[in-house]
Every structure is written in structure tokens, then in C-alpha cells.
């Protein structure tokens, strides 16, 4: 199989699930005729028809609400947020309806909400955010954030097949920048399982999304300085894979947590808490975070550069922690 981009991997996964299961359908803004703002669903309307690829009004609340309703009736909707920043317009439907439906009524809500998140593309404050932590905080939801084409492919399939509402955070910076050959058609990535993206012995970087790439670059650089970095790609930010998180700290004893989202109460805070609570006497150094600062994402490219974590910032923090 030829190498495909991260975006094509998502598209392939979606298409295959649409082909495999007739109850899978898609809805969102401009996903049909236009093929989606990033062309993830280009060609889908022709292939699957207007009953399964539905252009909706500009109302995230309506999109999510319709998806929930159809999921309750036995469909497997995949709702696209044109940008994940706009997911907040559907917030109530997600956290109060989708997340609690099974608890209240014993009814499963097998739906996926997917869309592009993250910065690095000079998108400014409304087209660059990483809003995963809000949802990771909500019991009843699953939240995934793939970092590679293979994981993007394997996770979209698992998300669609899962009987719970799954939020699937794509990274728009990675859409056309990463390429991989995909595994076979039946390949899935289990939700709730992290992946050791690089083995190491001196320090573990816990990360996900775009920052996996940046962390691997940093690890490569530090390997030249005789510091052996392990990179754990969380892949699922809720529920977190404690087993993999703890197994790695047992090996390295030092934890650096990296995420693109802003700092306070981000996913990294939860990882840090797990390490402090369950691996306290494995730790040989402070738990350190490299994250975006607590500000909106700046529009100005130099400011965005300063705002975003990157390999250079990760190297600096890792060096300090390794020497601690």
C-alpha cells in the first residue's frame, strides 16, 4: 500500500466504516457538496448519497443534538465540527445529553464527534485551540487525539465502533505533513491504550497529538547528548492508560509532560496527579510540564511561535530534568 497522509488516513478509515456498516452516516457543515473545509469528506456525497452525508445548518448544537437523537435510534453518526473550536456551541448537548444518556436511561449513544484542532497554522484564537481537556473532564465521554496516520486510521474505526460518545481530535497541522503506509483494512487501535513511541531509560515524555512529533524530534536531539528519552504517546486522553503511564515511570523515574493545550488543568495535570498518587516513590525528580501558556492562541505568527511548545522548548526542559 502506498504512503498516505494523516488526512487521507482519517478519510480512508471513515470510508471503510461507511462501507462496512450502513448505520454509519455523517453530518456537518459543508461536508457534502463542498467536501469539508479540509476536504476530509471529499467524494463522500457521490459515493454514499445525501441520506448518509448530510450538510447541516451552521449550528453545532443542532448537529450534536441530531447526532444524539439518531444514535439513540440505532444509527452511528459521525458529526464533523468544522473547527474543534466551535464544539463549544454544542457543549450542552455533549456534556449533558450525550455523556449522561446511558447513565440516566441505559441507552447507548454510539456517536463520534470529530474535527480539526490545534495550532501552528496561524489560525488565530478561534481556529487553533485544543479543547480536549473540557471533555476529558466529563464522565461518560471518551476522548482520543491521534498523532500518526496509522493511529488516526485505527482510532477513527474504534471510535465509530464504540458504543459511547467519542470525541476524536484531529490535528490540522499534521493533516498533510505526516505520511505513513497504513496497515491492513481490519486494523484498529484500541481506545484507552497508549503507545510507547520511542523507548528510553532516563526520562519519559508523556504527550499526545502534534507534540508527539515534536517530542520525538527532541528525543532524537538528546540522544546525541547521551540522554535516553522514552516517549509515551497517550493517544487516548480519556480514559488515560494508567498501566502504560506507570510502567514507563518505573523504568525512567522522571516525567516530562508535554501538551499543546494551555497549561492550567490540562490533560498534563491529570497525568502528573496519577504519577504523584500512584508512583510517588518511583520518582527521581519533579514532574515537569511543557505546555502552551494560559493565554488565547495568538494570531501573529511570531507570537504563535512563542506560544506553542516545540522540540526546542522540550529539549531545554528535558535537559534540566535529566540533570536534576
Amino acid at each position, binding site marked *: 500500500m502506498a504512503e498516505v497522509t494523516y488526512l487521507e488516513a482519517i478519510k480512508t478509515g471513515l470510508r471503510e466504516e461507511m462501507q462496512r456498516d450502513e448505520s454509519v452516516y455523517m453530518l456537518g457543515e459543508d461536508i457534502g457538496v463542498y467536501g469539508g473545509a479540509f476536504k476530509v469528506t471529499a467524494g463522500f456525497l457521490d459515493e454514499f448519497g445525501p441520506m448518509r452525508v448530510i450538510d447541516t445548518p451552521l449550528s453545532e448544537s443542532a448537529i450534536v443534538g441530531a447526532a444524539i437523537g439518531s444514535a439513540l435510534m440505532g444509527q452511528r453518526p459521525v458529526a464533523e465540527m468544522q473547527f474543534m473550536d466551535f464544539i463549544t456551541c454544542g457543549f450542552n448537548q455533549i456534556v449533558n445529553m450525550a455523556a449522561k444518556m446511558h447513565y440516566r436511561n441505559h441507552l447507548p449513544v454510539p456517536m463520534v464527534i470529530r474535527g480539526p484542532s490545534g495550532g501552528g497554522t496561524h489560525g488565530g484564537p478561534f481556529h487553533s485551540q485544543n479543547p480536549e481537556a473540557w471533555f476529558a473532564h466529563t464522565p461518560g465521554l471518551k476522548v482520543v487525539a491521534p498523532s500518526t496516520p496509522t493511529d488516526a486510521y485505527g482510532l477513527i474505526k474504534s471510535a465509530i465502533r464504540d458504543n459511547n460518545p467519542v470525541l476524536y481530535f484531529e490535528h490540522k497541522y499534521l493533516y498533510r505533513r505526516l505520511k505513513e503506509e497504513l496497515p491492513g483494512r481490519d486494523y484498529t487501535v484500541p481506545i484507552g491504550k497508549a503507545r510507547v513511541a520511542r523507548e528510553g531509560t532516563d526520562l519519559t515524555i508523556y504527550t499526545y497529538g502534534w507534540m508527539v512529533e515534536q517530542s520525538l524530534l527532541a528525543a532524537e536531539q538528546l540522544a546525541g547528548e547521551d540522554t535516553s528519552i522514552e516517549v509515551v504517546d497517550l493517544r487516548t486522553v480519556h480514559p488515560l492508560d494508567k498501566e502504560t503511564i*506507570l510502567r514507563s515511570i518505573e523504568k525512567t*523515574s522522571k516525567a516530562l509532560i508535554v501538551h499543546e493545550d494551555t497549561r492550567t488543568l490540562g490533560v498534563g495535570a491529570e497525568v502528573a496527579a496519577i504519577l504523584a498518587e500512584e508512583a510517588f516513590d518511583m520518582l527521581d525528580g519533579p514532574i515537569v510540564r511543557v505546555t502552551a501558556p494560559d493565554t488565547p492562541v495568538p494570531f501573529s505568527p511570531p507570537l504563535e511561535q512563542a506560544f506553542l511548545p516545540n522540540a526546542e522548548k522540550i529539549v531545554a526542559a528535558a535537559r534540566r530534568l535529566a540533570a536534576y
Partner: protein
Amino acid sequence: MSTVIVMPQLGESVAEGIIGKWLKQEGDRIEKDEPIVEVITDKVNAEIPSPVAGVLEKITQPEGATVAVGQEIAVVGDSASGNGASGNGASSVEAPQPVSATPAADMAPTMPPDAQQVSAGPATQTVVVDRPRSERVRTSPLVKRLAEEHGINLAEVPGTGIGGRVSKQDILAFIEQRPQPAPHLAPTGVFEAPARPEPAVQAPPAAPPRAPQPAQPAGARALGPGEELVPVSPLRKMIAERMVQSVYTIPHAVTMAEVDMTPVVRYRDAHKRAYQEREGAPLSLVAFVIKATVDALKEFPLVNAEWAGDNIILKHEININVAVDAPEGLTIPVIHQADHLSLAGISAAVVDLARRARERKLKIEDMQGGTFTVNNTGALGSVAGVSIINYPQAGILSSGAIVKRPVVLETGAGDTIAIRSMMTLSFSFDHRVLDGGTSAAFVNAVKNRLEGWSPDYPLY
């Protein structure tokens, strides 16, 4: 499967504990984490929770028994199996099960699964029960745990981390290069006798002798009516350890001298007002004692020294520790290179250190490098005292309160009785380093300098 409960390591340097009171009796059902026994050590008293649920099958150590760390104190049986025979046949399936095989995912936060211990019976699992955290050492949770598990005094491990921190690599290398694993357990009864115990068994040969932990009968019992257990602060514990270390390793001897401080008092009275106005701080009386001590130390360099096995280490720098009664307890910051300071310089240093000690603003360097200690017990109203040497120094000089007393003065015109400002100097010294002759000569040198304090002595 039965679980053997062992005496936990209740602090880095603790080798044994005393069974205070069994909170559960044989046959009692116990829940996981339920306290089963009170254990008393000279560092902490603690209720020991059961690491497992089950039935207390057997109490192997009675109340009041002194038990080495790691030694069995009880056996908890699996409640489901209900087998009276604690172990051997019962779970041959799991036969010799190394505890470290416990998967990480099952790791309980407070209970390291791989804590090595005495080898238990073939079918019994040995578990170290929860232990309270000991006093703060700048290491890391991991290093601290490894040190406790391997019976290592962290002070002996060279640190290569930032600020000399002992890192995981440092302690693993230290464990690796040790000739043999230090005996983790002191045999029962080593510290039982009231006689002075040997210096710590587990200290590597190169290390300075560690303070042994003598049994303290006063603490080794349950509370009676009208008694209260007061937990002590880390500083208090440290002071206690240092005192024990000093008293148990240094053969103390004391020599005293009465000093006529009248010339010093007159000198100070003459200068103190102007000094106070100029400097905004009082002219400290103890500064005179320190000044005289520093000069006497130059005359008797052997007093500014340290016993080191087959050698004596002479200290060419004169750094004077000054005892300060700070809110948390005794603090002894250092006046560095006191021989380079004038009387006013010493006074300013004393006032500054005392103030910062009370405001808890001392820095680490203020606490390091002392070579000799001056302890002004007079400031607290004590007329004379016998001080414990600030280990590993060779001596400590205490000055009592200055009190006016009638004394006999010998003058050219015959003896006369006069009212003089008298003070007692008390010098505790390490009798390995110094003998009575040198010690008395040193004290007299201090005395003569104070008694002969000239009105023209340079203040600056």
C-alpha cells in the same frame, strides 16, 4: 496464602522497633489497612496497618519485645481458605514467589511491592507495611525508598545531581559498588542492653561512625494515665540525633574557669551608646567572648580541630558557630573567618545571624563550615552549664551570665574585697583530641584576654 507481617523500617537510621500494643488479637478478622499493632521506635511511634485483609493467625512478638526491622511480628492468614496451617502446604501452587514479580499496575501507592525482606517461608508472602515518611532530605521519593530498602545512609552517597542531589543513578551505583549488601537487619537484641552499643553495624567502613540508636526505655512503653505523646518536629529529631551522635562518639570532659568581666563591661559601657547610634545595632557581649576565643584558638590550634580515626584534622580557618535559641529549637549558624573580623565585625555578625535565625532567614552557607562553637548560655540566664560538643568539632565553649559578686582581689596594697562582674566559662572538649592540660591552658588564654581587656582595645 498467608502473609508474614514484618517490623517496618520506620525511618532511615532505625534498625529496630518495640511492640507497643497489639490492637488485634489472634483470631481477629482484620481489614486491609486496618491498624493492627502500635510500634515504638526512638524516631517515631506508629500504628502499623495490615497490608492485606484476613485473619490474624499468629502474633509472633509479644508486647514490649524489641524486634529488628524486617523480622516477622505476625502472620495474617487468608480468610477465605481458613487454613490453620499458615502456609507451607496451602499454596504450593505459587511456591517461591518473589515479591518483586508483582505487576506494576497493582502497585499500591504507599506500599512498594518489591521491598526486599527476610526470606519468608516458601509459600508465604512477605510484605513491608506502610511506613511514615522520615524527615526531609533533598533527594527524591525514589532515592529515599531505595536508601531505606538497602539500609543506606544517604549522607554517604556522593550526589551528582543539581546542587549535589543524590540521584537514582548515584544510589544505584553506590549499591552496585558496595562490597556486599549491608546487613539490613540487626540481630534482635543488639541494642537491648543499656550498655553503649557498637557504632552502627551497617555503616560502610570508610564512613564516619554513625550515631547508634540506643534503646530508650522511657519511650518504650504504652502511655500511662496523665501522659501525652507529643510528636516531634524534623528539626527536633535532627537535634536529638546530633546530640546522641556527639555524646556516644565523643568522650566529653569539661574544664571551667571564673572570669572577671569587669574590664569588658566597662569597655562596653563606654562604647555601647555611641556604637548603637552609629551602627543601629547593639554591641554584643558575646562578641567579646568570641573575639577572645578566636585569639586563643590561634594560640592553641589543636582546639580548632576534629578527631578523624587515626588522625586529627587541624582547621586553619576559624569559623565560629554561635548557638541561637530560635523558635523551632537550637540553631547554630556560623561566623566565617572570624579571625578576620574586628570586635565590631563580630558583634554585627552575631546580631545579624541571631536575627535571621529567629526570622528563619538563614541560608545554607550560614549553617556550614563551623570549626568551633561558642555557646552563650548566659543570654538565657544560666550561670554555668556543661555543653555537648557540636559534633565533630573538638570543643565547645560556654559563657554563663555575668553576675556581680564580691570577690577577693589581690593588690599591691594587700587583699581586698570588691564587687566585680563575674562570669563562668565552661569548656567541653573531645578528650581524644585534647588533654586536660591543653584544655585548661586554652580556657585560661580566653580568660586572660577578657580580664585584661584594655580600654584602648580597637573596636574596629
